[in-house]
């Protein structure tokens, strides 16, 4: 594999380290355009050059123009928000954060604002392949999916795992994204090692979008589609970050917390950047530690939960020595970085990109100048696929029985999609699902006690990081809630339901299909989501005819 890749961004050649995503190339191109170093031979060299260039770095970080003309850049970093869309080789609306940079790629930013001339080089080869039918199909290659795959394969099942993330970042899900070569924790190393010892087929960079009939799913791949037949299915679709709209949250430079980490893991330059990490949940500390390790200057970690909640959380931690060790290790890595509970962003400002964020703490506000606000308000289960398949979903989580079996007998669900619970719960649920799907209920039963313990911890976690009511007052009349369609808070206030908002304001009608704004309106207005229809993720028209 070559060390660097040269591609075209808006007609100019840009060299990026191999393994970078297109989003990284766009970010590098825009930042390099105001600084001298053009060639970056490796991630660290690039990072150093960029750190040096920071003082003169005034270019807005533009990926696309929104429907009202705002400049936008990646938010979620994991292929959900569609803010990173660019045109790649004539294919408009391509998610640059999930597509690996490749030699000779022609990337154009800002599509959607002008006429779209679809060039013929968009005519990608029509590759449609049925997979060798697996007994067990697992959707999602995060910890739950990996654990399920290992236990099922060890039990003699033919297992296929499908995942949206590119092969350079997956398996691993978001928490272990791009961790396989150099695992970030002993736990990750152990599971990756174990994965090597079993025979599991992986399909990367593929998104399931439809279920034409029971026992069959369709997925879109980079250059075609594939049909997946299965006897049993395990959904390990994980979670996404929840975002709470506040004035300025659509500025380039405001990203998810896990979002910025995911981007950085794909080579996005963070070295030397001044970053405020904010929102809620244990993820904030992990993100801050990672960014710091990559050379970022983490100015502050702002946790919206109050001290009193965190103290109670601390008491629960004591019951779990492994979690204490993690916390202590994080604390050490974050020495010198202020951690403020009861603190949250109220607005972000900047001319075309983030320049400063206003934080509230203890009734007072202060302004912090920064390059990035990495901001996620806890997590939300990804339940769309479960809904498509026909599993019962209640209160935003997939209903499962003691064997992680959903309301459909041949469909199991494990990990965050059954309720946010963190890494250890995902691993144990994944194992139970994998064993149960392989018919080894007795083995699965042995893990029930561990799951009970982890679920208790999850309950504490969810209570501790419950969002405070004040966050509902953050949006002003003009604050955009739906970023795909630029629908303001004021317009939504006049609606009475999610469906009415969709019909009358176009809220949720863009490519994220309401994954970002639906969560926000659920928090702000208490609207439940509406019915789920194929394609459950945007897909090329040709793939809908398969």
């Amino acid at each position, binding site marked *: 594999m070559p060390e660097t890749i040269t591609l075209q961004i808006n007609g100019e050649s840009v060299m990026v380290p191999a393994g970078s995503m297109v989003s990284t190339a766009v970010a590098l191109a825009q930042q390099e355009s105001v600084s001298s170093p053009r060639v970056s031979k490796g991630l660290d060299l690039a990072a150093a050059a960029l750190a040096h260039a920071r003082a003169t770095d005034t270019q807005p970080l533009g990926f696309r123009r929104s*429907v009202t003309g705002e400049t936008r850049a990646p938010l979620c970093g994991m292929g959900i928000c569609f803010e990173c869309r660019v045109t790649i080789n004539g*294919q*408009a*609306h391509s998610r640059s954060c999930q597509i690996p940079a490749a030699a000779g790629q022609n990337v154009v930013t800002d599509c*959607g604002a*002008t*006429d*779209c001339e*679809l060039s013929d080089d*968009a*005519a*990608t080869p029509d590759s449609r392949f049925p997979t060798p039918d697996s007994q067990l199909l697992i959707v999602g290659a995060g910890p739950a999916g990996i654990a399920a795959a290992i236990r099922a394969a060890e039990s003699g099942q033919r297992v296929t795992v499908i995942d949206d993330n590119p092969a350079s970042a997956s398996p691993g899900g978001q928490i272990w994204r791009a961790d396989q070569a150099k695992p970030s924790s002993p736990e990750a190393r152990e599971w990756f090692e174990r994965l090597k010892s079993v025979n599991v087929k992986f399909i990367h960079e593929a998104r399931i979008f*439809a279920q*034409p*009939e029971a026992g069959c799913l369709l997925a879109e791949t980079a250059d075609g589609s594939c049909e997946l037949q299965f006897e049993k299915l395990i959904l390990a679709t994980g979670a996404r970050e929840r975002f709470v709209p506040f004035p300025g949250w659509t500025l380039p430079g405001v990203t998810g917390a896990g979002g910025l980490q995911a981007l950085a893991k794909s080579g996005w330059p963070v070295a030397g950047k001044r970053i405020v990490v904010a929102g809620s949940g244990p993820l904030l500390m992990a993100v801050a530690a990672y960014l710091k390790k990559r050379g970022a200057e983490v100015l502050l970690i702002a946790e919206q939960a109050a001290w009193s909640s965190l103290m109670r959380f601390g008491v629960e931690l004591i019951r779990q020595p492994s979690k204490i060790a993690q916390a202590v290790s994080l604390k050490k890595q974050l020495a010198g970085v202020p951690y403020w509970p009861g603190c949250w962003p109220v607005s972000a400002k900047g001319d075309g990109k983030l320049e400063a964020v206003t934080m509230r703490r203890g009734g007072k506000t202060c302004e912090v100048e920064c390059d990035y606000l990495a901001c996620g308000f806890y997590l939300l289960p990804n339940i769309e696929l479960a*809904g498509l398949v026909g599993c019962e*979903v209640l209160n935003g989580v997939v209903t499962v029985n003691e064997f992680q079996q959903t309301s459909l007998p041949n469909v199991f669900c494990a990990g965050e999609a059954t309720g946010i619970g963190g890494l250890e719960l995902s691993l144990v649920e994944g194992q139970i699902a994998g064993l149960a799907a392989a018919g080894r209920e007795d083995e699965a039963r042995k893990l029930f006690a561990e799951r009970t313990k982890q679920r208790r911890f999850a309950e504490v976690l969810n209570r501790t990081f419950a969002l405070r009511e004040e966050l509902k007052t953050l949006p002003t009349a003009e604050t955009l809630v739906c970023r795909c369609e630029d629908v303001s808070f004021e317009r939504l206030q006049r609606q*009475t*339901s999610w*469906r*009415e908002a969709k*019909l*009358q*304001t*176009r809220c949720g*009608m*863009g*490519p994220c*299909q309401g994954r970002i704004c639906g969560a926000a309106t659920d928090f702000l207005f208490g609207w*439940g*989501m*509406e*019915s*789920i*229809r*194929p*394609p459950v993720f*945007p*897909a*090329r*028209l*040709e793939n*809908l*005819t*398969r």
Partner: protein
Amino acid sequence: MTFDVVIVGAGIVGAACADEFAQAGLRVAVIEAGQIGGGATAAGMGHITVMDDSEAQFALTNLSQQLWRALADELPQDAEYIECGTMWVAADDEEMDEVRRKQAFYQQRGLPAEVLDAKALAEAEPNLRDGLAGGLRVPQDGVTYPPCGARFFIERAESRGAEVFLGKPVVELTGKGARLNDGTFIAAGLTVNATGSWAPELTPNINVQKRKGHLVITDRYPNFVRHQLIELGYLKSAHSISTDSVAFNAQPRKTGQILIGSSRQYAPKQTNPVATAPGSVPADKQIDPPILRRMIDRAIEYMPRLAKLSVLRTWTGFRAATPDKLPLIGMSAIENVYLATGHEGLGITTSLGTARLLADQVLKRAPAISFEPYLPSRPMKEHDHA
């Protein structure tokens, strides 16, 4: 509570009727089981198209198109009205004959229509496939986003004193008023059933059937499609009244999105006007993969480059179909219960004409066009749908 008129249904037809009656000074109530424009109004394509399957169909669609054009400046931005014109696409010489027949028909009746040869068609719509024979451009046709249009009519009616009851299912409709499911009776001098394909539930024994359609919408690709495109191939493949069928129909939306249709299927008998549990699509509204595939294949056949465009959503809806392809506008067999339904795939176009004709009848005004062909009491002959 007593009103001059109670209208059941706040789809585009009910909304337009409310607006028309309120404008005429009547005390109007609108009762809607769900929300404004949430049924076929939300599901349909939103075309404003003059059709010529019969003189009566032409008269109503032509009147309606003129009413829409007159209203264009008053419509709110979010009604996304654009006068993009319709392009009837001819694949071969036989269909070109139809283009010329159609042009003659429209021109004799004062509607501008322009014949395009193969080259002119390719210039007007560069993303259509090569080798088509030509087309007919009807420049004054347009498209709109109907749910916001319906809201506009309702709000205008309200500003003229109309009362609107949303989320109130009607369980009984008589010539004296409407009874809600909570027992409330809303009295009126006359009532209008404008509940689309659900109309037979309130007014039994009317000849309206549910006809299911599928639609697909893409992400934004501005100027990829410029006119509303409709194939003339249905002449051969035929949207027959009794069998399932598909036809190529693509529409440019003001957003730059492309709306792709169309399919026609008689839906299985099922009566449930209110949506079921959140998160689940009612059985009869679910996507039918085989017909969706046929519909998309047809679209890609006409416009190969559509294949690579990103699709955001697919959905279904129900047209209210009558055997002779004409709507029911006028008094039903029940004294003072009026009907404004049966618009099949033309409800957005003909909503304005329907409202005008219904008010003309009720108020005994000189009718804009003859209303006899649309009276519910007319004898009905089966006619193929386009």
